[in-house]
C-alpha cells in the first residue's frame, strides 16, 4: 500500500529533525489529528500513521489496466486426447527415470499418431514431470501441447521446451537474421523449394563471408540433388579453383563442392573421376565352380603404390580440396589410400557395382579384406576404408550394404558396427543381435541399436530368447543384467510375452541360488513397461507388429 510521501519522509527522518506540523496532510487526516487534542508529538505521529493506513486502504481503488484486452478463447485445430489415455500417463510416474522416459515417448507418440493434443488439465503435470527429460521428448511434447500450450509458454518462459528452433519462413529471417537463423532458413527452403533456395543463395553469394559460404555448402552437400549441379559446378570452376595463397576455409569449401559434384553422375568431376578410377581396375580369372557360375573374370580395384598423374598431391588438393599428405593420426598405409578413403563417402555404391561389375556382397568383402586397405594401429586392426563405407551406407540408408558390411566393422570399431546395426530391418537385426547364448545382446550399447517405429516390437521368438538369456545370466553366471539393457528391452519385448515373463519369474524363484538377489525391481520394470505398452497398443493406427 502506498504511503503519503510527506508523511513517509517525516517518519523516516524522525520528529527530532522535522516537526509534524511541517507536513501538509489531506483534510480528513488533519481533522483526525485535530480531534486528538494535546498529546505528545510521537503519539500524534503514530496515530496519524494509523489513520493514514485506513485512509489509504479505504480510499485507494484498484488501478485500471490500460493494455490490450482480448478474451477470445484460444482455438485448437486438433482434438484433445480422450479421457482414457490420462490414466496411462499417470501409470508412467512410478517407473524409473529411463523407463519412464521411454514409455512417455511412446505415450506421446500415441497422441501424435492420433492427431491429439494433451488435455489442459494434464498440462501442468506433463510440463513439471518432463523438465529434466531429453530434448527428444521435449520435441514430442511440443507437438502435443496445442495452441493453448504454446500461448501459455510464450508467457511463462520457465516452462519453455528445449525444442529445436522453428524454421522461420519469413524472408526477413534471411535478410536480418543471424548466421544460425539464416542457416535454418536456407535448410528449410532447400527442402521445400530447392531451386528457389539455390537462386537466393546465388544472388546473395558475393556478399557472404567465407565462413557462411562453408556453412551453406554443408547444408547443400548433406543431401545433394542433381539440380545442385550448375551452382556447384560454377563455384568449382570460378571462386574455388586452386590458389596458392588460399586460406584453409577456401580449401574446405572446395572439398565440400567436389564431394557434392562427385555425387552427381552428370557432373564433369564425377565423369572424370570415374574415368580415372577405372584405370585402376584389374581383372583376374576366377577358377572352379565360382568361375563357371559368375563368369571367368573378377575385377579388383588396385591403387598404385607410387604417385602417378592422378594420385598425387597436386591433383588431390587442386581438384578435390584434400590435404596434400595424410595427417599423422590417420591409420591409412599411404597417402593414396588416404585420398581414396576421403573420396569414398561421396561415391554411390551403384557406381562401384558398375565399375567392378560385382555383387554388393563381393564389393564389401573386397574393401573389407583386401590387403592394400589393411592397417594395424595399437589394439585396432582392419580395413581403413570401412568407416567411409559406413558413412556412405548411412547417407544412402542402404540396408543391403549394412548387412554385407557388418562382418568387417566388428573387427574395426564397434561404433561403426553399431551404426550399421541401426540400418538393419527388424528380422536381420534380430538374427544378428538376439541369438541364443549370445551375451552381447544383454549389453546396453548393442540393444540401443534397435530403432523401431512407434508401436512396433520384437518377435515373440526374439523376446523369448532375450528372457531366457536374462535368466541364464542370473542363475548360471550369477550376474545382474545392466539396468539400461532392461530399460531398452522393456521398450521392444513382444507385449504378448508378459505370460512368458511370469514363467521366467517362477523359474528364477525356483532356481536362483540362495546367495543371489532376486531381481524384483528389474522384473517389475519390464512387467510395468509391457503393461503400459499393451494399454497403448490400440492407439497406434498403423500398428507395425513385426512378423515372426
Amino acid at each position, binding site marked *: 500500500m502506498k504511503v503519503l510521501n510527506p508523511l*513517509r519522509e517525516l517518519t523516516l527522518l524522525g520528529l527530532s529533525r522535522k516537526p509534524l506540523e511541517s507536513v501538509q496532510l489531506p483534510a480528513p487526516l488533519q481533522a483526525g489529528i485535530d480531534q486528538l487534542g494535546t498529546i505528545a508529538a510521537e503519539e500524534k505521529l503514530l496515530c496519524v500513521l494509523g489513520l493514514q493506513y*485506513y485512509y489509504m*486502504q*479505504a480510499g485507494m481503488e484498484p488501478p485500471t*489496466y490500460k493494455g490490450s484486452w482480448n478474451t477470445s478463447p484460444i482455438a485448437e485445430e486438433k482434438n484433445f486426447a480422450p479421457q482414457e489415455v490420462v490414466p496411462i500417463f499417470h*501409470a508412467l510416474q512410478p517407473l524409473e527415470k529411463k523407463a519412464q522416459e521411454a514409455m512417455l515417448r511412446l505415450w506421446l507418440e500415441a497422441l501424435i499418431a492420433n492427431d491429439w493434443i494433451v488435455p489442459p488439465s494434464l498440462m501442468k503435470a506433463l510440463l513439471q514431470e518432463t523438465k529434466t527429460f531429453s530434448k527428444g521428448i521435449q520435441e514430442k511434447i511440443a507437438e502435443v501441447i496445442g495452441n493453448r*500450450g504454446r500461448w501459455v509458454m510464450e508467457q511463462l518462459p520457465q516452462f519453455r521446451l528445449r525444442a529445436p528452433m522453428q524454421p522461420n519462413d519469413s524472408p526477413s529471417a534471411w535478410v536480418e537474421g543471424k548466421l544460425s537463423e539464416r542457416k535454418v532458413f536456407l535448410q528449410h527452403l532447400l527442402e521445400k523449394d530447392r531451386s528457389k533456395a539455390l537462386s537466393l543463395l546465388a544472388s546473395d553469394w558475393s556478399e557472404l563471408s567465407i565462413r557462411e559460404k562453408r556453412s551453406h555448402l554443408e547444408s547443400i552437400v548433406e543431401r545433394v540433388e542433381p539440380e545442385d549441379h550448375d551452382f556447384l559446378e560454377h563455384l568449382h570452376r570460378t571462386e574455388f579453383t586452386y590458389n596458392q595463397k588460399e586460406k584453409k576455409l577456401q580449401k574446405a569449401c572446395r572439398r565440400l563442392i567436389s564431394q557434392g559434384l562427385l555425387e552427381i553422375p552428370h557432373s564433369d568431376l564425377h565423369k572424370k573421376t570415374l574415368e580415372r578410377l577405372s584405370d585402376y581396375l584389374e581383372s583376374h580369372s576366377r577358377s572352379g565352380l565360382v568361375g563357371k557360375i559368375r563368369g571367368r573374370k573378377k575385377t579388383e580395384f588396385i591403387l598404385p603404390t607410387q604417385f602417378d598423374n592422378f594420385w598425387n598431391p597436386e591433383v588431390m588438393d587442386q581438384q578435390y580440396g584434400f590435404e596434400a599428405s595424410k595427417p599423422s593420426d590417420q591409420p591409412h598405409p599411404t597417402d593414396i589410400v588416404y585420398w581414396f578413403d576421403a573420396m569414398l563417402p561421396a561415391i554411390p555404391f551403384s557406381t562401384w557395382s558398375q565399375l567392378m561389375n560385382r555383387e554388393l556382397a563381393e564389393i564389401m568383402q573386397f574393401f573389407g579384406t583386401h590387403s592394400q586397405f589393411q592397417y594395424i594401429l595399437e589394439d585396432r586392426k582392419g580395413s581403413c576404408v570401412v568407416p567411409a563405407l559406413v558413412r556412405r551406407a548411412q547417407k544412402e540408408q542402404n540396408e543391403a550394404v549394412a548387412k554385407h558390411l557388418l562382418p568387417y566393422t566388428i573387427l574395426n570399431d564397434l561404433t561403426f558396427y553399431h551404426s550399421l546395426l541401426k540400418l538393419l530391418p527388424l528380422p536381420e537385426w534380430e538374427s544378428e543381435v538376439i541369438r541364443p547364448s549370445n551375451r552381447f545382446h544383454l549389453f546396453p550399447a548393442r540393444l540401443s541399436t534397435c530403432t523401431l517405429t512407434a508401436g512396433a516390437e520384437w518377435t515373440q521368438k526374439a523376446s523369448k530368447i532375450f528372457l531366457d538369456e536374462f535368466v541364464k545370466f542370473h542363475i548360471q553366471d550369477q550376474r545382474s543384467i545392466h539396468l539400461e539393457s532392461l530399460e531398452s528391452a522393456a521398450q521392444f519385448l513382444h507385449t504378448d510375452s508378459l505370460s512368458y515373463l511370469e514363467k521366467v519369474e517362477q523359474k528364477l524363484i525356483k532356481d536362483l541360488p540362495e546367495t543371489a538377489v532376486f531381481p524384483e525391481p528389474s522384473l517389475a520394470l519390464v512387467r510395468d513397461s509391457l503393461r503400459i505398452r499393451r494399454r497403448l497398443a490400440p492407439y497406434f493406427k498403423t500398428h507395425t507388429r513385426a512378423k515372426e
Partner: protein
Amino acid sequence: MNFTEDQIHKLAPKASAFTAGKKLANANRWQSLGRSKRGLWGEIKGSGKNPYMVHIDIENLAYKCTCPSRQFPCKHSLALLLLQSQDEQALPMQTEPSYVAEWLDKRRNRAEKVAQTSSPLSAEESQERYKAKHKRATEREVFIQSGIEDLQKWLKDMVRLGLLELPHKPASYFTDMAAKMVDAKAPGLAAWVKALQHLPYQHTEKWQNEALDILGKLYVLLQAYQRKTEQPPEMQATLKSLIGWNLHKKEFLSDSQTLLQKDTWLVLGSIQEELEELTVHKSWLYGLSSKRHGMLMDFESKFASRTEVPLVDGSLLDAELAFYPGILPHRAVVKKQRHMATQNPDAPTFLPNWKGQHDSRTALLKQNPWISDQAYLLAKCKLLRLGDRWILCDEEKRYKALCPDFPADKILEMLMMGNNQLLDMAIVERHNGILPLGMFNPPAYISL
C-alpha cells in the same frame, strides 16, 4: 469422492512422501485392493513379514496403515489415494472386509460422541473454574499492560529518531523487544515486532511503506486494547486474540455463545507458512448455503505434529464449523464433520468486480481494522502479465497484483484452464498482494 493428484500432493506431509507414494501407485504392487462408498483399502508388501494393511475413510477423511512410518498420511495411504485418482477401476467395488468395516464404524461412533457437547458442569464446579480463570486473567492483564507500555515507548523512540536507521539495527534491537512481549504474555505483539525485523529491507520503497503500515496498525491496536473495556464483548475478543490470548479449542467449543454453522463447505484452498520454528497451515472454506467464509488454522513444529486431519482442497464437506469469538468471526474449527459431500447444493455468490471487493473489504475494515487473510469470491476475472508482475483483472479492467511469490506452476494452471477467458475465482487478499485459491469451472471447482 475422487481427489486429483494436486489435491493429494497437498495432503502429503513431505514432498518425499508424495514421490514415494507415486511409486507405489501401481495396482500391480498391491496384493489386494478394494473400495466401498465410504472407504478404500489395500494390502501391500513392505519390508516386514506381513503385508501392510492400509485403509482410508473417504467420507470423513482419515487414514490408517499398519506400516511403522511416522509420516501422516504415510506413502501407502497416499499411494492408495493416487491409485483411486488415476484409475478408480483398479480398486474394485466390494463388501468391506470386517477389519475395514469395524474401523469405519468405530470412527462414525467416535465422531458422534465428540460432537455431543461434554456434560455440563455443576454450579459449584463452574463457580470454581470461573474464579480460577478470572484470577489467571487478572494476573496476565498486569503483565500485558506493562508490556504494552514498553512497546509504546519503543515505538515512540523509533518515530522520534526516524526509521532510516531501521535496516542497520542489530537483530537484538527487535528480538529483545519481541522477547519482552513474550515475557509479558503477549505473543501476538511479539509477532508484530518480528514483522518489523523481517521487512524486505532490500527494497527501499517496499520496506518503508510496510514499516509505516505496521507502526500505524500496531499503535491503533495498542490504544484500542488499553480501552478495551469501552468496547463490545466481540471487539474485546478480537483485541485479545490479536494480543495473543489463545482460546483453547475445548474451552470455546463448550461455550454456549460460540457461533456454530452447519453447511456444505467448499474447501477453497490452503497454504502453509513457515514462521521460525513453526509451520502454520491455513485453509479457507466457503459455506455454500450460509455464504459464510471461514479459515481453519493448524500448527506443526519439530516437537508437535498437526492436530487436525488436513482437508482436501477443492472438496466439499458437510460439516459444522465453530467460529472463534470476535467482531467478525473468521477463524474456525470443524466441530463435526458428517461426510465428504459429492454434490454442490448451491451456487456460490460472487462479488461482481474489484470495486465490489474493495467496498466489501472497506466495510469489513470499518468493523475490524486488523482484518487479514480474508477470502473473497470474485466474478469474471482474468490473469494478465503486466511488466514483471502478474495481475488479476476484472471485467471492468480494474486489477490487483498477485503476491510476488505466487508459484509459476499455479500460474500455468490458471492460464491453461482459463484459456484467455474470464473466470470466477476464489482469492485471498494478503498484505503483499492477491493469493488466488482456485477457479470455478461449473460444476467443478479447481483448487490451485
